[in-house]
């Protein structure tokens, strides 16, 4: 489904990702773990071309999504980003109403009439397990929601444009334990429909939600295997040291 081939990535002269090869399976959850600054977020942001915004960034290698080279000349970046949703580390709802937050992606992509948008907003909020909490205050500002609700709203917003892939960049790191649990439940429910790649600092979280785990260190993909195997019987000593909390 998603494939990284010989990826090297530079911020100016800094070599942030070193020769990475990785295949990510469709309709599953893949966790990317590793110490701060190891390149896992940079890697994640390759797949919706968020790194394009950074001046002096340079990429070699190929990123394939569904067999298509997403850095190819004919690729429409807007369209690519619609197909590959992203949830950010800090909840970042727009300073608009709850409804408009979810409708935003539909509107900018010119999708549908009022009726369609209203239906899709409800559907997305339900999918993000937020509908019951907000159905009576859709016109209220999204900024009035709690941090956990805001993050689920951001997930609903991403789901509304019906992506096939969901990239999550430490989606629960700014949240309290209960909100974190709700997000994890949500990921568990979404796995059958979407291909989810999640960057996390929290090893327990990785082990709870993911099917496969990749361990990054200093810009390299040190180990990549089934999550169960990774957390019970890692091949590399670096992985062993990291997941047992000896550093990082």
């Amino acid at each position: 489904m998603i494939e990284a081939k010989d990826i090297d990535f530079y911020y100016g002269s800094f070599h942030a990702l070193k020769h990475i090869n990785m295949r990510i399976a469709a309709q599953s959850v893949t966790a990317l773990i590793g110490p701060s600054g190891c390149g896992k977020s940079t890697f994640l942001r390759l797949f919706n071309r968020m790194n394009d915004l950074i001046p002096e960034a340079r990429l070699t290698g190929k990123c394939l999504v569904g067999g298509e080279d997403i850095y190819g000349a004919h690729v429409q970046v807007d369209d690519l980003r619609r197909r590959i949703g992203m949830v950010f580390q800090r909840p970042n709802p727009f300073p608009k109403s709850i409804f408009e937050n979810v409708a935003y992606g539909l509107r900018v992509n010119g999708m549908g009439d009022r009726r369609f948008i209203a239906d899709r907003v409800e559907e997305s909020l339900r999918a993000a397990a937020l509908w019951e909490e907000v159905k009576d205050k859709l016109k209220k500002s999204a900024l009035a929601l709690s941090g956990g609700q805001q993050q689920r709203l951001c997930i609903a917003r991403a789901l509304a444009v019906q992506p096939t892939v969901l990239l999550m960049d430490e989606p629960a790191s700014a949240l309290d334990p209960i909100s974190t649990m709700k997000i994890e439940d949500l990921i568990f429910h979404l796995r059958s429909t979407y291909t989810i790649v999640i960057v996390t600092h929290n090893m327990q979280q990785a082990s709870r939600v993911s099917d496969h785990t990749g361990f990054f260190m200093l810009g390299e993909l040190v180990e990549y295997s089934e999550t169960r195997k990774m957390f019970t019987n890692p091949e590399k000593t670096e992985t062993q040291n990291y997941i047992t909390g000896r550093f990082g």
Partner: protein
Amino acid sequence: MSTKKLRRAGEYVIEKLLTVSGAVTGLTMLTITVFLFKEGAGLFRSPSVEKGYALYVHAENPVERLSVNEIKGIFDGEITVWNALSSDYPHAEIVPYRIEDIFQRYSESELGEDYALLPDKLAEVIRETSGIIAFLPQQYAPTGMTGVKTLPSQDIRPADFFGGTSWMPTATPAPLFGVLPLILGTLFVSIVAILIALPLGLSVAIFLSELAGTRTRKWMKPAIELLAGIPSVVYGFFGLVVLVPLVQRAFALPVGETAFTGSLILAIMALPTIITVAEDAMRNTPRELREASLALGAGHWQTIRKVIIPYASSGISAAVVLGIGRAIGETMAVLMVTGNAAVMPHSLFESVRTIPATIAAELGEAPAGGAHYQALFVLGCVLFLLTLLISVSAEWMAGKQSSKIL
């Protein structure tokens, strides 16, 4: 004493100093405002006829009071018969009379030592002329003499001031303080200036904040900020030498000193402020919001229009207020290019006079404490209230914008 105690004492002193400087600043502001309004309020207690003078008529003339405009009409020769003012008045010709007219009848020696006989002679003239209205210094007034009636002095009315359409502060016997042409002149010039500066300024701000490369921004921003620091008299000079002939030629006008020229120069002057403030506001949009928008498949323009501009709206309206404030209060440059005719403006391509320009041009000639002087203070109050109104409404709109859910 330990260093800790010393530091605390120091902090205490600094705290007090800050409080004092805050209080002093606040008091100064308050004093200025109070002074402005106090001086101005005096205007409506001063007589509508020039100070030290009064109007006298024949004792049998039934006229009781005359408005400022009627007095002006009479002495300008526009009103020539009494019953043109009211049907109760006699059908008699009006004879306006000034002190100097006495010399047509009497030589200086006939008026006696130090003009001691002047009041008698004046009374004589008034008794003889039934249709007379005489504008005379009270010093030589024929008061109390038979056959002479003094018209009661009237205070300048706020209605005449704020509703008057002529500004003739040095007219005699009754100066006209009609502030409408000045208010309209100010509004004409400022509104058109903002209409020019705003779209231009916001476009440049969007360009600088969102489209320009780092290098372009690096030299353009300081260059624009530098423009904000040029003294207004220099802008005025530029306007006079470059814009005035340009406008005259472009629109085939008899003179290039028009309201529009003033608007142009004001727009140029307000641009740097608008650009700088609006650009800062847009660049302060959190990166998270831009990324959220782009990640949903929004294009660059959609992100600018739907996320960045709404987010920056309070900053943008601050830019607008600062721009308008500059436009309304600007004195020198406008004084230099608008031609300064204090008449009701009918089109943009006529000469106008703004409130600040009036104050600057006339304060030097107005005798301190006189009605003219006070009228200029009232103009100051009007200007103050005008800018206050604009900033309050802009504040209100910005508040509404930010609380409104887009």
